[in-house]
Structures are given as structure tokens and as C-alpha cells.
């Protein structure tokens, strides 16, 4: 049975875990352990993903039980459809982020990505991409009638579409240059009223609160993000922790009020309720004054704070917001290879272990690292992104990366220097779509968490062949890989 040995590499987090255990608080780790083993049929892809009410049909992976669903669908069809359904959700998530998706009749790509995409699509059916792919996929997933090959090709096309939607998400002229981002437990040092932001509240609300708090007050108020990348006009909101550590942070008693926006996990409001931390949902259109009043009131009431972090535990890094920013850096630095590391925290691996270990091991003479997401926050926290020399890890805009890096490399003619892209953890289906899209474009992609593809050898082979035709690789494991293993993968792919 899969077991958990180490929860996080951060000593402060380990201290908070102990403190939470003493208080009897149940954090994400406890939930994860209690959930084990998670539905095995689903994990190997053998739980039928079609939207059919005759089921649920599940196929025995060892062959002594049912080998076909009620409609006659076999294991290959189920696993391929599972992959398609996940990428379908990923594309829908990406579409939701685009402000006016109805206007996108045809996905256009900036040069020189257009050539790469055209080449990839030639291997995957030939036609251009549009939002019709979404409707076509919905039709495919209506009833199991298409062969696995067709479903896999469609999943890869949706992967590229997801990349295209991410490209559309950032309108030209929206954001330029680089943003500053601070991260670390040290943000909670001192005697401030702390307002924790989780999810994505509207930028306007946060700006208004920040204007109010900048006025003189007897007790200063500080806004920190609980792991989400919250963009402001001139930078990102400082992140006190990664998204995986948000519950631990709340358990410390240092946060006086939580402002939640869309995308907040249900565990955080629950934690607020159990700890009597005032919680305000941004969807209720709260007044900034009211938020501040409640936070100050809570500060006066609350005195229990088990966390007294060192103020020096804050690191700052520049976040590259457009391809030109990365291009400039790549032109300045002489390098032979660039590794991209990113993704969300996952309880399947010790938090921070893979990003910090890999980035430390990879960067060096001629080797550069760029990161995004929770992985990037770990790199910032560990100081890997704030070194003065040219070997500092480059942090990329979490909404565009790794597409941003791909564009920069393609424009500067250094695409062959892209060593590979490693997803240290997948949280949303959109991340899986991005991984598949990149692999379809000929990039070497590695996913450090198991994918539900192990129920069908045929599907795994078909996927490998389709990606190989476009020059791409998607590596995933039948176990939780160690950092050393992924490093070896990068070295193997070294040209």
C-alpha cells in the first residue's frame, strides 16, 4: 500500500503540523491519509467516464471480473475516454478564463508558434483549431462509439486548444515587463493585523482594501495571499505560504480574517469556522471598510498565535509577465539548456521536495531553471529565485507558463535548448491539458504524479506513438518518482 513518510520539507511547516496535531486540528494530510486508498478503478482509468446512466460500469484490471461495460465498451475505450474527459474539463476551465470565448472562432497563434502548432496539427487530423473542438468532444463523450485512437487524438487536440485559450487569456498590452513577488513565513512576523486572501477575489476589491490600509493606523494591516497568485496593478500579493500549506497557516492563529474568492477549497472556510476566524466571501460584494473593521476587531480578540516567524524569512523575486522579458534574459545569459518546473502542491509527494531539489540540482553552468505555480513559490522561499548571479531561477507568470517560455524560446530561436517541462503536481484538469498540449507540440514533458492510464497498455502505446510522431514525449510514472529519478529523466533528454 502506498504510505506517507514525509509531509513537507519546510521546517516551519513541520512545526505547524505538530502544533495543529496538538490542537486536534485535521489538516489536508489527515484527510489524504483517511482517503487512502482512493478509488482504484478510477485511478487506473477503468471506471467508465461516459455520461451514461446505465452504469456505473467498472472493469476489473486483473481480468477475473467484468471485462466490458454494459454497452460493450472495453478497457481501452474506457481509459482513452477517461483521458479525453479530463482534457475536456481542462479546456473548459481554460475557456472560462477567457473573457469573451464566444468571439474565438479560430485559435490564432503568434509567430513562430504558428508553424509549430501547424506541424503538430498535421499529425493530429490536419484541421485548424476552434471552439468546435469542445462541441465535438462533448459529442464523442455522449456515447462510446469512437475507437481509442480517435479519442486520444482528440485529447491531444484539446491539449493544444487549452494552450491556445491560455494564449488568448492575456490580451496584448495587458501586462508588460516583470512583477515583484514576495514569499515566505516572515511576512507574518511583527504585530500586524493579517488578512489572508485565498482564491481569486476581484482585483478592484483588493486594491481598495490596500488603499485603505496604507493610511496611518495604530496597528498596521497586512494583506497576504494563502498560496494563490493574486495579481495587482504593479505586482503580486505577497504569498505567506504555498496553496498546500494554507490550512497549516490558518492553524497557526496568525491570520485575523480571511477573504475568499472564487477557487477557494472548501477546507479553508471550514478551518476558519473551527478556529473562529472571520471569513468574508468576495462574491457577496463586501465593503472594504467592513472587512477592515472585522479584521481589527478579530485582532483585538485573538491572542493565540503559535507562530512567531523570523522576519528575515521573506524572499523576493521578479515574475516575468511577458515573453519579451524572458527573451531579454535568455539573450543576456549564455546557456545550453533550460528546464521548466512547475505545478501545484500535492500531498502525494512531500511539499516542496521535488521543486527545490530539482532546481538546486539542475541550475548551474549553462543550465537554467524557470518555474511557475506552487513550485515557483517553493523556489522563491528557498532563495533559489533571488540569487544575484545569472543562475537564479526565473519565475514565470502562473497564468501563461510554460507557454510564455515556449514563445520566448521559439522567438529567440532557442527552442532546442528547452530541456523539458516537469509538472511537479497536477491539481486542475487544465494542467493536464497544458501538459498534453506541450507534448503534442514536440516538447519533452514529465508528470511527477501517476496518470489514470495504467488500465490499458494499448492506450499508453497509442499515446506514446502519437506524441512521438510530433517529436514529443510524455513521461509519467507508475509510482511516485523521487527527485533523483526526474533529474535522471532530464539528463536522459539532454541533447
Amino acid at each position, binding site marked *: *500500500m502506498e504510505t506517507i513518510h514525509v509531509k513537507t520539507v519546510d521546517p516551519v511547516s513541520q512545526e505547524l503540523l505538530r502544533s495543529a496535531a496538538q490542537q486536534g486540528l485535521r489538516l489536508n494530510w489527515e484527510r489524504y491519509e483517511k482517503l487512502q486508498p482512493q478509488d*482504484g*478503478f478510477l*485511478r487506473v482509468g477503468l471506471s467508465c467516464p461516459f455520461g451514461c446512466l446505465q452504469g456505473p460500469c467498472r472493469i476489473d*484490471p*486483473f481480468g*477475473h*471480473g467484468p471485462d466490458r461495460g454494459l454497452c460493450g465498451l472495453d478497457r481501452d475505450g474506457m481509459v482513452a475516454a477517461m483521458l479525453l474527459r479530463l482534457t475536456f474539463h481542462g479546456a473548459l476551465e481554460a475557456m472560462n478564463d477567457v473573457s469573451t470565448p464566444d468571439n474565438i472562432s479560430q485559435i490564432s497563434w503568434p509567430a513562430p508558434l504558428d508553424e509549430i502548432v501547424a506541424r503538430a496539427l498535421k499529425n493530429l487530423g490536419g484541421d485548424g483549431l476552434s471552439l468546435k473542438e469542445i462541441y465535438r468532444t462533448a459529442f464523442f463523450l455522449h456515447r462510446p462509439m469512437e475507437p481509442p485512437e480517435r479519442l486520444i487524438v482528440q485529447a491531444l487536440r484539446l491539449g493544444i486548444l487549452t494552450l491556445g485559450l491560455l494564449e488568448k487569456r492575456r490580451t496584448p498590452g495587458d501586462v508588460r515587463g516583470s512583477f515583484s513577488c514576495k514569499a515566505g513565513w516572515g511576512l507574518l512576523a511583527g504585530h500586524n493585523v493579517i488578512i489572508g486572501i485565498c482564491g481569486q477575489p476581484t482585483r478592484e476589491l483588493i486594491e481598495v482594501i490596500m488603499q485603505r490600509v496604507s493610511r496611518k493606523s495604530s496597528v498596521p494591516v497586512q494583506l497576504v495571499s494563502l498560496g494563490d497568485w493574486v495579481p495587482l496593478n504593479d505586482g503580486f500579493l505577497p504569498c505567506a505560504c504555498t496553496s498546500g500549506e494554507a490550512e497549516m497557516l490558518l492553524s497557526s492563529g496568525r491570520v485575523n480574517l480571511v477573504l475568499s474568492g472564487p477557487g477557494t477549497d472548501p477546507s479553508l472556510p471550514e478551518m476558519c469556522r473551527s478556529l473562529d476566524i472571520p471569513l468574508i466571501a468576495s462574491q457577496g460584494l463586501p465593503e472594504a471598510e467592513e472587512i477592515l473593521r472585522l479584521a481589527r476587531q478579530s485582532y483585538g480578540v485573538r491572542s493565540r498565535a503559535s507562530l512567531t516567524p523570523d522576519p528575515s524569512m521573506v524572499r523576493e523575486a521578479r515574475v516575468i509577465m511577458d515573453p519579451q522579458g524572458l527573451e531579454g534574459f535568455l539573450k543576456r545569459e549564455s546557456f545550453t539548456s533550460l528546464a521548466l518546473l512547475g505545478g501545484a502542491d500535492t500531498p502525494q509527494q512531500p511539499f516542496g521536495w521535488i521543486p527545490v531539489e530539482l532546481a538546486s540540482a539542475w541550475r548551474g553552468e549553462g543550465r537554467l531553471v524557470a518555474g511557475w505555480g506552487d513550485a515557483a513559490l517553493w523556489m522563491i522561499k528557498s532563495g533559489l529565485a533571488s540569487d544575484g548571479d545569472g543562475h537564479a531561477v526565473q519565475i514565470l507568470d502562473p497564468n501563461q507558463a510554460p507557454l510564455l517560455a515556449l514563445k520566448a524560446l521559439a522567438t529567440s530561436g532557442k527552442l532546442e535548448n528547452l530541456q523539458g517541462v516537469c509538472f511537479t503536481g497536477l491539481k486542475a484538469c487544465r494542467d493536464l491539458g497544458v501538459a498534453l498540449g506541450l507534448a503534442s507540440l514536440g516538447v519533452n514533458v514529465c508528470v511527477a504524479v*501517476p496518470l489514470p492510464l495504467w488500465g490499458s497498455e494499448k492506450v499508453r502505446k497509442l499515446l506514446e506513438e502519437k506524441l512521438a510522431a510530433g517529436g514529443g514525449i510524455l513521461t509519467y510514472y*507508475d509510482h511516485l518518482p523521487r527527485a533523483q529519478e526526474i533529474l535522471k529523466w532530464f539528463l536522459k533528454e539532454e541533447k
Partner: protein
Amino acid sequence: MKVIGVHLDRCTGCKTCELYCAVERGSNGKTLFKAVQESPAPQPRIRVAGSNETPLPLQCRHCLQAPCLDACLTGALVRDPETNLVIIREDRCIACWTCTMYCPYGVIFPWPQMKIALKCDRCAYMENPVCLEVCPAQALELVELDDFEKIFRQRWQEINEILTSSNKKKGLLLLDLGR
């Protein structure tokens, strides 16, 4: 002696016990992702029989007078003196399947590819049987054999209480269960 009791009212027939029994006890890799790639395919020691409406997880009862012990030609099936469980010594099994024919509950299964008979040993060398650990409905429970009578009485009492409660439906027959 502790045996595995089944709460039939809780079992949903999801076969998670079968899946993880095969992974934990039948595979070399011991993880689901590795086990599904192994050949021959790992086999479980517990089987869920019956239909979706009335699923019935079947595993060895470790009978006090076990016919399989007498049937075994090579002495591969033995009673463990410490735990009193009927266990199979796979190195001695010659795959004659005599035990599978003698088992009154049909819970010894042939594994022709490996040329051994498969039976539940209640994960004797582990802290808890894996099927218990993984059951999402907690339909399986490890109980002392002597406690079964107590459990039955408790269940009869529960049923009586339900039937005699104030909001019972008119015309419902009161069964004299447990008396």
C-alpha cells in the same frame, strides 16, 4: 480466534476489497499501478459474489473443522497453532485443486497460472487484513468468533426496536426475532 465479519447491509458490491487484496497479497509490486501491469494478473483471496442488489463478500471462514485440511494431499493446508487460522503453504501446493472441491463455502480458488490454490489467510502477518482497511463502506469487520452471538443479539434487538417504534407503519407484522 478473530475472523472477518461482513455487514451485508453495508456492502455495496464495489469490489474495492477484491482489487486491493489482489494488489497487496497477489502482486509483486504492491502498488495498484505496478500490479495492473504484472503477468500473470494478480488474483484476490476475497471474492464478491452475488448481484449488485445482494453482494456477498466471500472469504475463508477458517472452519473449526475444516474439510480442506483433510482433503489436502500434500499437507500444504495447515492450521496455524498460534492464530488458529487455516493457512496455505504455497511451496507445498501441487495444484491438485482437491481443496477447492471440498470447501463447503467455495472460497478456495484455483490459480492455474501459478499452479497454487488461493485462499484468504486473514492477512495473518499484517496488522489488519487489507480488505478491512480499504472497504469504503466499512462493511467488513474483524471480530472474535465468540463475539458473534453478541453481535447477532444486538442486531435482533435493533430490528425489534425498529419494528416496535411508535412511527411503525400500520399493519406491519411484529416478528419475534431473537426470542
